């Protein structure tokens, strides 16, 4: 039972991190970033390279390596996010049909990115070290690996920080005002370009974290961003674009749905349940669970 809850929460943290990134970008600048999977994978490879370099340099302190892996993963993904912004957002955002053009441009980056990773790193999976050690925690007779607990805690802390930042800070208000009324935001001095690049960098960093965490169990491979992208899209839609609490709630729902399905039905049933669930949620609440974006953005 506890094992089930923990694995559901691990999935939820993963999906939450990716989905909030997608949701932020989509709701603030109206760009559906299909290159989020590329950004995700870039962080994994970034962390892999840094860890390799540290090993070569003779650093074996596990804490240093873990910190370096997390920070480099986030930094590389944030940079990848900015790279997507420079290619697909800055040149296109005030052209006609930006929504469609942005979609195509980010899809192109995503496809190209996968091939570039394949050429550079090869098709073989790359491992990342266990960041939180191999230990296990004993709760009521059930042992939970540190890697899972660490993932949940780090994701929760980071998502909490982003939520508070959105509520309290000047940049957060900038982001929220852009979601509500881009024209009004323009008139109080908020620039679409700065907001867009900020959103892309932040969603990048969150995906990078998710990528490093996921690599604990699934390795890094050229296309390892695909699955998180798809589920991230579903979760951000179900959570209601632009709503952090809604997205977190949706991530938890989808985490439990996946954990329960693979435990009691079959792993192969997971996509059916996911898509069924998103259809159900959108039928009942067309704007998603959080639904902050009313009829503001068409």
């Amino acid at each position: 039972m506890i094992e089930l809850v923990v694995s559901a929460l691990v999935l939820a943290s993963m999906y939450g991190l990716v989905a909030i990134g997608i949701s932020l970008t989509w709701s603030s600048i109206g760009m559906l970033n299909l290159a989020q999977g590329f950004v995700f994978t870039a962080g994994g490879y970034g962390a892999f390279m840094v860890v390799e370099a540290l090993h070569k340099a003779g650093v074996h302190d596990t804490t240093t390596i873990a910190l370096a892996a997390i920070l480099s993963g986030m930094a590389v993904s944030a940079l990848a996010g900015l790279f997507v912004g420079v290619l697909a957002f800055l040149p296109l955002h005030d052209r006609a049909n930006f929504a469609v053009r942005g979609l195509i441009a980010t899809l192109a980056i995503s496809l190209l990115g996968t091939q570039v990773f394949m050429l550079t790193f090869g098709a073989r999976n790359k491992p990342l070290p266990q960041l939180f050690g191999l230990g296990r925690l004993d709760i009521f007779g059930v042992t939970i690996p540190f890697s899972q607990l660490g993932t949940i805690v780090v994701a929760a802390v980071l998502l909490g920080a982003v939520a508070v930042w959105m509520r309290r800070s000047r940049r957060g208000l900038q982001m929220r005002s852009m979601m509500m009324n881009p024209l009004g935001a323009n008139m109080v001095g908020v620039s679409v370009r700065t907001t867009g690049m900020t959103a892309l960098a932040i969603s990048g960093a969150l995906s990078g974290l998710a990528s490093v965490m996921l690599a604990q169990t699934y390795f890094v491979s050229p296309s390892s961003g695909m699955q998180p992208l798809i589920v991230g899209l579903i979760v951000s839609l179900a959570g209601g674009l632009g709503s952090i609490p809604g997205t977190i709630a949706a991530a938890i729902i989808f985490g439990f749905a996946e954990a329960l399905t693979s435990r009691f039905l079959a792993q192969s049933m997971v996509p059916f349940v996911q898509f069924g669930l998103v259809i159900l949620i959108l039928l009942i609440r067309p704007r998603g669970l959080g639904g902050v974006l009313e009829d503001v953005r068409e």
Partner: protein
Amino acid sequence: MTLLDLNEVSAGYGTMRVLHGINFSIRPGERVGLVGLNGHGKTTLISTIVGMTGWQDGSIKFNGKEIGGRRSHGAGRTTPKIVRLGIAIAPQGDAIFPGLSVSDNLDSGAYTPGSWRQRRKRRQDILDIFPPLTRLLRQSAGTLSGGERRMVSVGRALMADADLYLVDEPSLGLAPKISTGLVAALCEIELGDGAMLIAEQNLPLLAGRCDRIVGMHAGEIKDDVGEALGDMPAQGSHND
């Protein structure tokens, strides 16, 4: 010494020319009323100052810095930069953020770093000007009445630490009693070295409250207000 100086400014949308070679300036500390009938270019003039029209031509100097020039595309691209130089706008109707609370809406007006640090004090000043907003601070702005929305929109502009406040049709669509109160409040604000331009269809609302009133007629500035209002000088006077 002028704060804002427009020299031969034309502007419009697509093939339509709305403003025809406007020459106009505002000095620091001045409160200027801009009156004219609907569709004669008041809103376009305000939009042109902050670079939001489809195209524009001619020099616009703000504090000696050129913010105009010739431009045929990219409407709104320079707006944030111009606003951050110290021009605050309360647009026609409003452009508030419906899903955000009233206090967030007001704070967003203090977006420039200098005003952001003093936002609590500034917000208090706004509440002194518009007391009805005090009890609405936590409420979502999308649920407000028309008059309250307008207060939020104007209040948001006043939150900025700007040198020039552009207020477009503060009375539009409001009940006479509310619009009179709103315009009176606007006209009582201490400007110091700042200046304010109020565009308004309803001359009696501004008469006697502004330092200077100019007219706008068919895309041109008329110093004779009567000429701008044509045959309907008392248009809307029933609002008194």
